[in-house]
């Protein structure tokens, strides 16, 4: 026998809806869901994609400085987002627009930081959706700390559906290599915290394929830390919903953390500044298009659920209205005033900073004075 003898079996991927739109049943992950509920998920998927597409367009038109598209990852995000209860908390990266949607964060709010009128600007506790975090992996430790608070508040394992609280945190295949993410695993396991780690393995970290980060499937890492990991079809909104629900339920009931690897694909560029043609083949995109997260739901609704055209027309119309609202609202986002940079650095502004603000105000005033010909 050698230490390196073993070859791990290829993992099977939890799937409840095939790319062709056929509903399959998984012995371990039953999902009770009505066609109306699937219609609602379809609506989420379509509107999220539409919003995302508008944002990309707005960037092209110079209305946004940057956009990180979630194209192709809508199911992974909506499935997870819809598994959350109101009291649950989510800690996103910079790409979870679909989760934000499910948390009722106005899409326009998200545009602020990409337009450059703010650095985020929303209140994490308003919709229980934390601020976008750009530093890879940092948010996973915030989720751990928040979960420590949840546990200390006695909001785990009481059995009260509106009280027990879970924390869901997102990260990418690339971020899985950051020390912070692994420390988060350690903390969550050691203290058995109500955290679900949700890794969207979209196959790429900018130009680096997931093979640069790991030679085994990412979900397997959890077992090494002492909690369950599972890989799901990240383009199957039903699988994402079912498994996220189970993991969140188990977290709320005090059974501790889970790692979910949503196996998906970044269909667009990393961001609008990226040019994927430099590092990946278009064939890859073509194969993944066949696994499109929205098409399969549409196919199901038409073929199996017999949903008629009017439903799709209505959603199309709604997405048009959304697009218009977003375009107008984006352009209407106001630039902050130069002096505002001093305002939210501290809860209690320091005298130093107050002085800097005052003298800068005076300096700015001198121009107006000059402009209006008024004597300084």
């Amino acid at each position, binding site marked *: 026998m050698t230490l390196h003898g073993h070859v791990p079996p290829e993992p099977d991927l939890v799937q409840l809806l095939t790319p062709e739109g056929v509903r399959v049943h998984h012995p371990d992950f039953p999902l009770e869901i009505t066609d109306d509920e699937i219609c609602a998920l379809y609506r989420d998927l379509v509107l999220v994609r539409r919003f995302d597409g508008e944002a990309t367009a707005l960037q092209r038109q110079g209305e946004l400085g940057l956009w990180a598209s979630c194209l192709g990852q809508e199911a992974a995000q909506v499935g997870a987002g819809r598994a959350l209860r109101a009291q649950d908390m989510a800690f996103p990266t910079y790409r979870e627009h679909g989760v934000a949607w499910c948390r009722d964060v106005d899409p326009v709010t998200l545009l602020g930081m990409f337009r450059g009128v703010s650095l985020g600007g929303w*209140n994490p506790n308003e919709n229980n959706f934390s601020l976008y975090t750009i*530093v890879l992996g940092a948010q996973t430790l*915030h989720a751990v700390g928040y979960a*420590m*608070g949840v546990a200390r508040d006695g909001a785990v394992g009481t059995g009260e559906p509106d009280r027990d609280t879970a924390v869901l945190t997102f990260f990418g295949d690339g971020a899985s290599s950051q020390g912070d993410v692994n420390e988060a695993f*350690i903390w969550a396991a050691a203290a058995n915290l109500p955290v679900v780690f949700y890794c969207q393995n979209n196959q790429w970290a900018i130009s680096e394929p997931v093979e640069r980060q790991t030679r085994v499937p990412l979900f397997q890492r959890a077992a090494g830390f002492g909690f369950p990991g599972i890989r799901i079809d990240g383009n199957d909104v039903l699988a994402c919903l079912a498994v996220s629900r189970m993991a969140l339920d188990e977290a709320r009931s005090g059974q501790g953390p889970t790692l979910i690897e949503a196996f998906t694909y970044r269909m667009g560029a990393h961001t609008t500044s990226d040019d994927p043609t430099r590092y990946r083949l278009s064939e890859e995109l073509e194969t993944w298009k066949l696994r499109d997260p929205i098409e399969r739901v549409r196919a199901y609704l038409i073929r199996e659920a017999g949903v008629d055209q009017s439903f799709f027309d209505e959603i199309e119309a709604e997405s048009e209205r959304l697009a218009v609202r977003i375009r107008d609202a984006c352009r209407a986002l106001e630039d902050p005033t130069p002096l505002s940079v001093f305002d*939210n*650095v501290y809860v209690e502004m320091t005298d130093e900073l107050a002085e800097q603000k005052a003298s800068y105000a005076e300096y700015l005033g001198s121009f107006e004075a000059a402009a209006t010909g008024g004597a300084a």
Partner: protein
Amino acid sequence: MSTFTMAGALNAALRDRLEHDDKVVIMGMDVGKLGGVFRITDGLQKDFGEARVIDAPLGESGIIGSAVGLAIRGYRPVCEIQFDGFVYPAFDQIVSQVAKMHNRSLGQVRMPITIRIPYGGGIGAVEHHSESPEAYFAHTAGLKVVTCSNPSDAYFMLRQSIDSDDPVIFFEPKRRYWGKGPVEIAETAPLPLHQAQVVRPGNDVTLVAYGPMVATALQAAKAATEDGRDIEVIDLRSLSPIDTDTVVASAQKTGRVVVVHEASVSLGMGAEVAARLQERAFYSLQSPVLRVGGFDTPYPASRIEEEWLPDVDRILDAVERTFTF
């Protein structure tokens, strides 16, 4: 008025805040049963439980990163970094998250986090146990940075730091932990956290010091009386923000200033104090603001740390140079 060691005063302040606000939690390595390697948290886990005094897994980034999450959940975490040289694994969480989260949220979420760091040398320790990293944090917008030099300040400044709704890096001069001093626990109006203090009035020269160097500066001032020098000593207390007015007022009176700290001189606090003094008291200065600090080298092997660290002689040498300039 009772007498405390600085360590005892810090412990009392933590105990007081744990009793006063049940959102206060303490996190760090060995802060539980052991009471911390310096016993600053001695007895607290026994009295407040493992849910409020938490022995953390051994990751500084994990300690600070989870403090951020606790703060979002409405808690008021007090983190202990075991030694100055071990704060760097948490640097990213401190600089990019703790310092910026409030700003990022446009003021909608607060980071009332206190990060306690025993710092400075002179205790004969091995590498990484004697450093003075305060300048890194004082240069970081969004943080407030303070340090105490005596048991009374230790007690009140730590309480004020924990009460602060802004993140505070609280530097504790470890070599002064066992020094005793009076603390008026009942005091209801302690000096504001970010105010400097003239700890010895004088007319000829101003010594600006903080943390471990305040005692050394006071010794120097005492010794200088023999040479007929009347030295004023200022305890900066707050490193960010700096109470510039108090320092400027003193400089305007004495015309001569020497800044003393253990950290390497280049880009240390002395640089900022000197830069501000020549901006604000240009015509009052009779000589350049001089800096006495650690050399621009890594902290040395302990057998020669006393030669590396500023001491009475090096301070007096600088004082003389402000006259013979």
